[in-house]
């Protein structure tokens, strides 16, 4: 009896602490960041090392880096996940090898990715400090998450679908495109959002690859400062940059929310057209 009560109280307490920390964090950012947030702030270029002015070019750079990263990583990871879950045996040598290397890759600290990106994309491939280098580095970084979530999503689709489709004389590729991928779509989207979240929050890997320059980028080969780098710079290196750091952090959170909801609504439309999971 007493044990039960204790367990209940403990569970509630942990839940309360966790959500309390989250609420405190969020309200801190909103309280400090909201007053400065305005359309002008979003559109203007930063002035005086970011103490005044806005974050217009930085948002553009962030979105470009993100676009490069996701456009490269998504097809690659989807193809790998399909290979792993549909075309190799679970315990085959190649399957085990790829899975093991992905797990290792997922645990590598992002600063190492940054150094690798700098050495490979910036110097070896000669892309320099650029949005392209940053985006490609992030792509390498989110690849393991994307592949593992996509693979798990595909493996969670019932084997019955594969058997029934085969019994109807459908080819494996048609089964994949018309049945398995659509059924796994919720998991694929969730994985994609996880990847976007990690990419957008990344600082260390970008400092070495896409650089610090806070001008509006002219092309993908220009250096561009990401929001996370901007926040880091304002709060660590610029005295008096705290208010704008808060506003930028708030913007970062809003950006994630916006991307999330756009993806969700796109997915819903797509699902509704192709696959009807519920009434």
């Amino acid at each position, binding site marked *: 009896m007493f044990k039960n009560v204790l367990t209940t109280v403990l569970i509630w307490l942990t839940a309360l602490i966790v959500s309390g920390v989250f609420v405190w964090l969020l309200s801190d950012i909103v309280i400090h960041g909201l007053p400065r947030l305005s359309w002008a702030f979003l559109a203007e270029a930063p002035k005086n090392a970011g103490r005044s002015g806005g974050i217009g070019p930085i948002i553009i750079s962030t979105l470009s880096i993100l676009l490069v990263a996701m456009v490269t990583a998504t097809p690659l990871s989807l193809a790998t996940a399909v290979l792993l879950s549909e075309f190799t045996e679970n315990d085959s040598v190649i399957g085990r090898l790829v899975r093991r290397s992905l797990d290792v890759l997922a645990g590598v600290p992002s600063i190492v990715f940054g150094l690798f990106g700098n050495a490979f994309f910036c110097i070896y491939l000669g892309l320099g400090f650029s949005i392209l280098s940053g985006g490609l580095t992030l792509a390498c970084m989110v690849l393991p998450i994307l592949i593992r979530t996509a693979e798990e999503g595909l493996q969670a689709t019932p084997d019955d679908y594969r058997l029934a489709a085969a019994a109807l*004389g459908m080819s494996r590729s048609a089964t994949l495109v018309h049945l398995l991928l659509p059924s796994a779509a919720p998991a694929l989207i969730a994985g994609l959002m996880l990847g976007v979240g990690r990419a957008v929050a990344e600082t260390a890997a970008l400092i070495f690859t896409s650089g610090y320059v806070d001008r509006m980028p002219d092309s993908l080969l220009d250096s561009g400062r990401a929001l996370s780098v901007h926040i880091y710079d304002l709060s660590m290196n610029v005295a008096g940059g705290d208010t704008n750091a808060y506003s930028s952090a708030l913007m970062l959170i809003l950006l994630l929310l916006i991307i999330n909801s756009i993806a969700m609504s796109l997915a819903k439309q797509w699902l509704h057209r192709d696959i009807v999971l519920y*009434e």
Partner: protein
Amino acid sequence: MKLNGPVKPMNETYTLGPLQIGPPCCDPEPLIRVDNLSLYYGVKPALENVSLDIYKGCITALIGPSGCGKTSFLSVLNRMTDMIPDCRVSGKVHFNGRDLRDLALDVQGLRRDIGMIFQKPVPFPLSIRRNIELPLREHGISKQAELNDVIQQVLQDVGLWVEVKDRLESSALALSGGQQQRLCIARALALKPKVLLMDEPCSALDPISSGVVEDLIQRLRGKYTVVIVTHNLAQARRIANYAGFFWIRDQQRAGCLIEFGQCKQIFEAPAHELTAAYVNGSRG
């Protein structure tokens, strides 16, 4: 020897024609000839030396205890065994005069000719319409008018048209179990198969839906060749023209065919004592 009269008032939502009851049906003309078939999973034999003929237009029931290889036998007939790693098949299986085990055979075409219905209904998580449309499109039928015609035709064939014609665009997963199974049969019929393999198609259904599906299977007689696995002996007796009795040989734990013949004979005058014991319910 033809029992052709409608025994129930003809249910007008079906378009497959009147119910035909009971064996036997017609002059036997073998459509599938199985000769000395053995099947192994790895080194473990699951079926040994099975020989039988599946007759055109008839319903053949396969009965026998759990694990005696009935499902394995069915999956040889449409090459679903290809999908099981280290499953090995030996012997001869002829369909339409061709060896089914021929590696050069067009397996997708074969599975179009020989459809399969599973124990648990497997509707795809798509709309009712897309469920039937998807395999049709895969087999090269893409004109919408033609698709619509086939969809209506097969849904009428399985008696589902009246129930679903106003919600073709809604999810097939929302149908009841019996409706789902009939949709799966409709989906298979849409490909105009010659043979339908049914692996315990009624055993996941309630008695009423099971009865409806059983009626439907009887209506397939004559137009399609049906091979049905069932644990329901009364059902086998009611619907089948021919019956095969499988058993597990004790020494090697391999399944084998004990007896094959007209359903009436298997149930009323079995030649083998094991068959007699099984159909009378004293063994198995």
